[in-house]
């Protein structure tokens, strides 16, 4: 049985607590990297992480891109959508196809 975690700044994530996801309020990148590793090994299958925080710990996240579980998924935070999550999708298209054919340079 796996659990679901949400990481990011307090304002962006506290609502998820009501649904039964586990929020981890973190803003410090170092701390976030450590927490991510801890969660990945601690029985969490999905880790949602705000785009703003993800931007600071890109390397840590890339490490899980080609591993099986957990799935690290970017979500927009309270401060707005930075388009980083879409960039990740675009990146995997470019990796697979060689050029971006889904977004047509948007």
């Amino acid at each position, binding site marked *: *049985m*796996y*659990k*679901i975690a949400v990481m990011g700044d307090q*304002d*962006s994530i*506290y*609502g*998820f*607590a*009501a*649904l*039964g*996801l586990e929020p981890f309020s973190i803003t410090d990148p170092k701390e976030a990297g450590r927490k991510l590793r801890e969660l990945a090994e601690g029985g969490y*299958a*999905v880790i*949602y992480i705000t785009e703003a925080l993800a931007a600071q710990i890109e390397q840590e996240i890339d490490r899980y*891109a*080609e591993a*099986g*579980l957990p*799935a690290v*998924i970017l*979500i*927009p*935070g*309270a401060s*707005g*959508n930075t388009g980083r*999550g*879409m960039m*990740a*999708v675009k990146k*995997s*298209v470019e*990796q*697979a*196809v*060689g050029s971006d054919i*889904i*977004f047509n340079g948007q």
Partner: protein
Amino acid sequence: MSAKHVNPTRMELTRLKKKLATATKGHKLLKDKRDELMRQFLTLVRENKALREKVEAGIREANQHFVLARAGMSQEALNVALMTPKQEVYLEAKTKNVMSVDIPVFEYSTRTPDPNDIYSYGFAFTSADLDGAVKRLADILPDMLRLAECEKSCQLMAAEIEKTRRRVNALEHVVIPETQENIRYITMKLDENERSSQTRLMKVKDMMLEEAHHYSSRYQD
């Protein structure tokens, strides 16, 4: 053009011919695998894009309500309201094998079946906007989980496609031409050897006949 030195022997020739057959077969199979992976990847990535747009819109909307709720309530009251969630989400993760890529399949269940258990607070002391915000997040949750599944699958498949494409290219542009070149080299060398021994035998035969019958001196007379 063969970079490496090959022994022009029949044994080596047989070995290379076998290698070429395997490489050609492997190339065909890997190419099929790549094409099929690509087809599935493209449908999946389109779904991924649509889901992401939907989830991002849903979260944005929820956040707007949270901002309103925050404005209407004190920080303490908000924290207390969400401190003890009633609902919990459990996730069951299985894997599905698509063209040798293990993609995850998530099934989720909630601790209680009652959809109203997302409201972990009494309605008396909280703003109505909080209800709206929580409701919107709850509505988007199934899509968020599907997004997680979809996006992870896309990442895994993209990595596998890249790997397969490299293999196909290596076979097509390096292994197969090199083996063909080596086979041609050995075949030519062996033919050459055969011709040379043939001429040697003819020459020896001439010399032996000459020895026995002395043609040249006889015709001179």
